[in-house]
């Protein structure tokens, strides 16, 4: 049980780290949103699953309800995160920011 929890948490951490590194390394606003908006989603899925499993360590009905609530958080993140990413991109396009492309294509 503890192994599963630790593995889930570590995998989630790897995804979050990738998101952070991606925000630092990628060239422009639009490409930075790719790791920011989405590696976080899967990372939070993994970590929330880990927390939900850890919570069921001593099984009671109250603990089960709490775990279901944690999973509900993941569901809402999965609904709201793409919408938020989309609205940020839309704001960028409306403000007139030109997407970064490779040099040979720009010519």
């Amino acid at each position, binding site marked *: 049980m503890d192994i599963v929890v630790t593995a889930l948490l570590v995998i989630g951490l790897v*995804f979050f780290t*990738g998101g952070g590194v991606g925000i630092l390394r990628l060239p422009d606003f639009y490409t930075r949103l790719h790791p920011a908006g989405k*590696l976080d989603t899967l990372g939070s899925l993994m970590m929330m699953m880990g927390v939900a499993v850890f919570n069921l360590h001593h099984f009671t009905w109250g603990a089960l309800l709490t775990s279901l609530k944690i999973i509900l958080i993941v569901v809402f993140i999965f609904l709201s995160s793409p919408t938020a*990413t989309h609205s940020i991109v839309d704001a960028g*396009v*409306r403000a007139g920011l030109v997407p970064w492309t490779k040099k040979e*294509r720009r010519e």
Partner: protein
Amino acid sequence: MDTQTQRKYVYEPSKTTEPDFPSTSRPKGSPFFAHLITFLILFSLWILLSGKFDLFHLSLGIISCIIITLISGDLLFPESKTKGLIRSWLLFLKYIPWLLYQIILANLHILYLVFHPRMMELIDPEIIKFQSKLKKELSLVTFANSITLTPGTITVYVSVDGNFHVHSIDKKSAEPLPGEMESKVARAFGEQ
């Protein structure tokens, strides 16, 4: 408005500000079944969130769920079309595991890109435009959110008639669009 004149990348902003929704006039069917399902969903959510099973909390939940159902019962099932409702939900549930699998695959791809030492040579961002065959608003929204959830692609703009602008981070992410995901969404919402 000097930001207007300096703008280089424009995609008909007049279209985005005034979308014409075709389904504003809702057909008046028998809404009882849809209301009942809305009430059941709300009430199960209440039980899940409160976690108390005594008479006081349950009756409070019933009263508030009935009020909310009466006020906004036609939000969840706007067509009040009860035929094939359960079947379409089952089809949608079948779509979710496939989507999760795609999300994990694509996340690993982005992770590989981000940690790659020669990342700048691998990425090739571009905006691709295509016309979707989907008709219903709900399936369009699901399709747009699915595109955004699978990493490597972000939906920039969707119109009501299914005109998509998608920002993709490299060639590999852009290839499968619209393709398989669209047909999966179409099957999940009963459009073929």
